[in-house]
């Protein structure tokens, strides 16, 4: 779908950052920017600001049934966040999840994209659709389905599931990793595949004339060229991992190992259903900052690697 996700080579106008010369056409800028800007302020910045403000308040009340008053409490809620062992355990848990699941998922997506692009495979349209279909299933529904598939008694894979309890404390994290992988491989594959399609054919010509194998071409030409797409999907997967909510929430109902604080977002959700809005807001703000730091660190890491 896009050349954007392909590293720039053979695209002269991109390596030529001519200053946009439209200063005198500036009156058009508000027309382009304001519609999005207004919505972004109203539905992104305003609620975030509101959440931050909320997280700075605490509740006071008198007597057992007295009305609650919100008073400014500074960083009181953040002290609670930082002394909450379960929350940080859950962050550690999703990081372990991400370190294993993200490479597996993206590796699979990359292999499938390369195979689709290699000309070795017939029926590409069919496969493209087949791999993408799981993505059409909303997370909640996908988790409910896999709950059945893991069931020791009702699963179509009963010989396997009755021998191995995928919903036990040891395995349930990976059972969920499988659900996430199942849903998202096709999606990531499409991003990478479209990046591959955008590589001009003549890039390969020389290699083909030299008699390089498909594997060689994939390894030394295609993968480096689609690296930006891979980095992008990685960042998105990191964000997605830290924000796991639907899968663990559904899995709570059929696995004894998934607690109410299993993932950071589940902690936010269960805190706000106590209801303790202020503490929930502090948890969300902390989670957003953690996500920000990790994604940023990853981007820095890859761009430094790229320069070397």
């Amino acid at each position, binding site marked *: 779908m896009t050349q954007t996700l392909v590293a720039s080579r053979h695209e002269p106008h991109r390596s030529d950052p001519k200053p946009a010369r439209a200063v005198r056409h500036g009156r058009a800028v508000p027309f382009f920017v304001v519609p999005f800007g207004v919505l972004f302020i109203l539905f992104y910045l305003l609620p975030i600001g509101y959440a931050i403000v909320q997280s700075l308040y605490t509740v006071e009340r008198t007597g057992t049934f007295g009305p609650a008053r919100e008073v400014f409490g500074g960083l009181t809620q953040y002290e609670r966040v930082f002394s909450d062992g379960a929350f940080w355990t859950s962050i550690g848990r999703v990081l372990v999840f991400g370190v294993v699941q993200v490479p597996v998922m993206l590796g699979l997506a990359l292999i*499938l994209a390369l195979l689709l692009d290699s000309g070795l495979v017939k029926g590409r349209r069919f496969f493209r659709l087949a791999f993408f279909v799981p993505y059409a299933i909303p997370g909640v529904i996908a988790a409910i389905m896999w709950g059945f598939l893991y069931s020791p008694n009702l699963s179509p894979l009963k010989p396997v599931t009755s021998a191995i309890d995928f919903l036990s404390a040891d395995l349930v994290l990976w059972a969920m990793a499988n659900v996430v992988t199942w849903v998202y491989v096709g999606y990531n594959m499409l991003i990478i595949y479209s990046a591959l399609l955008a590589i001009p054919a003549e890039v390969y010509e020389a290699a083909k004339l030299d008699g390089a194998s498909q594997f060689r071409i994939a390894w030394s030409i295609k993968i480096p060229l689609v690296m930006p797409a891979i980095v992008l999907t990685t960042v998105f997967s990191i964000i997605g991992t830290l924000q796991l909510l639907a899968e663990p929430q559904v899995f709570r109902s059929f696995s004894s190992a998934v607690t109410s604080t299993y993932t950071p977002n589940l902690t*936010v959700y269960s805190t706000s259903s106590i209801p303790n809005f202020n503490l929930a807001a502090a948890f969300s703000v902390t989670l957003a900052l953690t996500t920000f730091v990790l994604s940023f660190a990853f981007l820095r890491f890859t761009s430094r690697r790229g320069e070397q």
Partner: protein
Amino acid sequence: MSTHAPEKTRIKEPLLSRTGAMLVMAVCTLYFLVPIWWLFVGASKSSDQFTSTNPLWFADFDLFANISDLFAYRDGVFLRWMLNSILYTGGAALLGTVLAAMCGYALAKYRFRGRELLFNVVLSGVLVPATALALPLFLLFSKVDATNTFWSVFLPSLVNPFGVYLARIYATASVPDELLEAARIDGSGEIRTFFKVATRLMFPALVTIFLFHFVAVWNNFLLPLIMLSDERLFPVTLGLYTWNTQVNQIPELRGLVIVGALLSITPLVIAFLLLQRFWRNGLGAGAVK
């Protein structure tokens, strides 16, 4: 210049590679499609047979009876949910893509003060967890008495910071300044140039942004869960979730959830098939430059 043609290379590849590749594809197809097949088979069974017969093969084929039960349940509320989902998702993705494209285009093609700041702020919006936004949004909508309305879900769904990011990069890459200059010399206004010239060049990217956006809205069920209390405004994900929580009171609902899940996949598959066609055109257009 043309996209590379697999036909030329296929002949040269050894049979082994081709067989190996097809094998990988076959295994993966099984992995991705068996659960869907299970869903399809499950949807065709009565609730009694659902637990008592082979989960991967048909018993009495009751799919159409199940579908008509689903459509009849509570005056066809399921159809209403499907329609809502299409409106929320399709509408928000379409309009959101245009807005993101405009903003990204301006960021790429005009210089103005605060441009980088704006870009960075928008980009960090991508990192904000949905749970952090949904509750404050509810409280803010409450202040203007607009919760439990179509707009309370639709408007926040329009904003897609990632789309702006993609649109900016793509506009930089695929819309040459010379072309814009030429359009200006022809007397075309900035806005007209954007819609007549730039969007055509950016079309593949716009399709990408649309797809990302469509799926993000489709999957977001926390916002409608918090915003909506009128069942007739629910998107299909929230509706099915609601039924699923009531299964222990009314066990018949389990069957409806399964049939509903099967039917709810169809709009996305259709959207995908349509977009696939656009893609190819888009790629062709991209190759002409």
